[in-house]
């Protein structure tokens, strides 16, 4: 199983984070878990890149964060999309789709 796990390609991590956060406020650990589960345990987010990425997105104003009681106990920092973040996410998804289609076209030719 360990072999199948892929590190995330540079540049797509932001997109994956934004997608995950778009589904509702969530903390850092949750984001990593959700990406792992949703990708059927193929995409593994390194903690070393997750938090810097979160902080970067926050600085760019795409994410906002607040401290809340998460379901089971201690205070957690929950991230959610800002208005700019939502717009940016939509644009990035379209862009990614175009890119993936293009790659698919080349590979299938």
């Amino acid at each position, binding site marked *: 199983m360990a072999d199948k796990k892929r590190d995330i390609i540079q540049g797509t991590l932001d997109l994956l984070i934004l997608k995950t956060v778009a589904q509702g406020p969530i903390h850092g650990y949750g984001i990593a878990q959700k990406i792992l589960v949703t990708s059927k345990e193929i995409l593994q987010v390194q903690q*070393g890149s997750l938090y810097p990425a979160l902080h970067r997105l926050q600085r760019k104003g795409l994410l906002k964060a607040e401290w809340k009681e998460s379901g089971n106990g201690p205070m957690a920092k929950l991230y959610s999309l800002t208005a700019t973040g939502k717009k940016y996410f939509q644009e990035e998804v379209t862009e990614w789709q175009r890119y993936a289609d293009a790659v698919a076209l080349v590979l299938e030719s």
Partner: protein
Amino acid sequence: MDFPWKRAESELQQEIAHHLQQLTAEFERQGHSHSEAVRLANREFGGGEQTKELCRDERRWAWLTGLRQDIVFGWRMMKRTPVVTGAAVLSLALAIGANTAVVSLMDVILWRDLPLPHPRQLVNVEWRGHGFPRELADGAAGSMYQEDGWSIADFFSYPGYQFMRERLAGKASLAAYGFPNTVSVSFAGAASVAKQRPVSGNFLSTLQVRPALGRLLFDSDDTNAAPPAVVVSHRFWASTLNSSPDVIGRAIIINNKSTTIAGVLEGSFFGLIPGDPTDIYVPFHQAPNVRPKGPPPLTDNRFWGVSLIARRTPGYSQNQMRPETDAAFVASWPAQPKKADKAPHIYLVDGSGGLEFLRSNFRSPLLVLGGLVSLLLMIACSNIANLLLSRAAAREKEVATRIALGCSRMRLARQFLTESAMLAGLGGVASVVVAYVAESLLGQFLVARHGDGIPITASLDLRVAGIILATTMVALLLFGLFPAWRTSQMASAEQLKNAAGRHKWNTGRILTLGQMAMSVVLVMCAVLFTRNLLAIESTDPGFDRRNMILFNLRPGTSGYSADQLETFYFNLERQLLNTPGVSNVALSSTRPMNIGGWWEDLKLPGQVDVKGASLNGVTPTYLSLYSPRLVAGRNFEWADISSSAKVAVISEDLARQWGGLSVLGKTMAFSDGPPGAQTPQYEIIGIAPSMAATSMKERPMVVWLPLDKSSRDVAVVLRTSTPPQFALAAVRKTMAGIDRKLPMVDVITMEEQISKGLQRERMFATICSCFGVLALVLSVVGLYGVIAYNTARRRNEIGIRLALGAIPGDVIAMIVREGMTVAALGLALGMPVIWLGAKYVEKELFKMKPLEPETLLFSVGTLMLAAFVAVLVPALRASSIRPAQTLRQD
């Protein structure tokens, strides 16, 4: 307090703790024990500190947090070595301060415009020719200097000025001014002296000075019929008129003549040049308009005694102005000279900075000083660089640890740069004090050179300080960049272990070499100027300079009429002689040892060659006050004064030129005088020993004449039997008894008078000695640092050498050789600089060549000796290394 960066820091802690908790819980759910789960979670998460560091880099406040951390850390590093840091900051402060002071003065004197509207429109009107135009003029007052084979002068006749002013009307406003004279002033019952500058009525309005109170002078004031009015400088108003706001319209007694104060000029206007001593501006027609002989200057077109400044109207260029002014100048002459190519022609000089002569006078000494202080700054900067380098090397372990903990290389480099910037900043702040002190010293030094002026104050220019601080910052950042870059290149701890710098010529040594080269220049200047001063001071003036008092009296302008003066002078001598402590009294028309004075070209009848001599009118006691007896002939008697006898005593060296004792009884004549008229002639009645009459720096031949009995002012020379300071109180009492309203001007001892004339030499010697000592200390400390550091790194090698049987003497020799090589090469490197700089310094020297073997040997010797001490200390330390100990250490 809840700073944003602090909050972010604790949030980051919590966030990561939360993540670890969740991971641990996950592992526990998978069936691991709690402790096992914690371990697994930590492993899974990886380097927590690294993640934190990466996150910090992403934060909004990151740079600020980083900066704060850098500064706090830098401060801690500085505190750890207070002496080194203190020395570094002090040396920077001295260097920056000295530079600020010199550059501020250069700015004020060489570069800055007069504080007047549109200064670029101002033009100094001068003429250029070959020597004094004897065919056109009989006498002159003004200055003339030689440049590139031309004589450039600033004096014109008053009628000539009026003619030129008419011709230029509408295109340029031409104004005239004379040299400031000392006048006796009495205001509201208090008597003092002041400097009065005669000016044309349009002078102040041409300059566009604004009055602070009252009005300016106008052409309507500049007539014989106008009621007497003057305008005073702001400085005079503040000091002598007590800043009283109601002075306008009040009377001031100037040279015994009641005059109305029409206005006070604005404070920013210091005069035509920085240090202009003018207190009072008086219209030409109200100023004393007499000469001892000849017609009044204002109507005589053969007496050239006024200087000119013009303001061009916008659009009228200097190139258009020159030929038109010249045509008017030529047309104003009473006759055309026979040789047209020798005739003077108008020469225009930009007047935006005031009078040109101040600039040309000060350019060379200021540039020499500027060169010296910039060398000093370079030495200080390279010392700091050395300090940072060795500090960086000493911190290799710390740096390696920080890299291992995830510190980015950018961040490390920034840390080092912050530290050098902090040093520069601290140095800069401290330099303000240094600059302040240095500037007042330099200001005085320039006055001394300027002679009659008031201290030139540059009022500590913050702009200049800023520029110099910025330059220093840049220099330091460059220097700081190297250690920063080197440290950030250290890839791993592995590499570190082998990184002992074994290069023979590492950066530290090259810097030290440069320092030595610059120091030898500064030390040499110090030795040179000190020797120069000592040589002048130890010259024998030809008389005993101890126990002499000098002061001036101006009875002719303080209420005594011309026919009262002889009796006044006669009684003055008697009464002063009766004063306790006074053993001899004499009067002279020119103050002795006061540089300049009265000079004439003299010749014997029938001979062609002329001799230049310094002249003085004296009373009979004058010569006996200086030396007990004459060489030959007789002294003057008071009867010679009473009868205005045409007799002279000449100095021994002049007599020798004229054939020795046989000259007695012959008649000598001034070589120049108005054409047609007979030149003044004097019978030589005595020969006196040669002596310094005008200054310690020159020894002209001297001629003494009987004092002019109607002389309006005299210098009083006293010889005292007690030290002068004890006799002075009694002298003042006697003077008060003679006339309470007659001020004693410039009361000083002869020794003070002599040293006043040497102020420039003394200041140069003092400044250069300070620079020299500073340079010596800095470079020796630099050398010590580099050698000590290199030796410390070679402990192992030295230990092994000693273990293998080297004797301590070998080790000492090895290290001393190494250090002295650096020093000697540095000194050699400095020699070309000295050789190149010699010609700039030569102008400032008296009777001395810049490159004398003694000077060179002494400078090099001092530096080599200091360098030897500096390398001997680490060498001795190294020789006492115990082999077993060093080997065990690693």
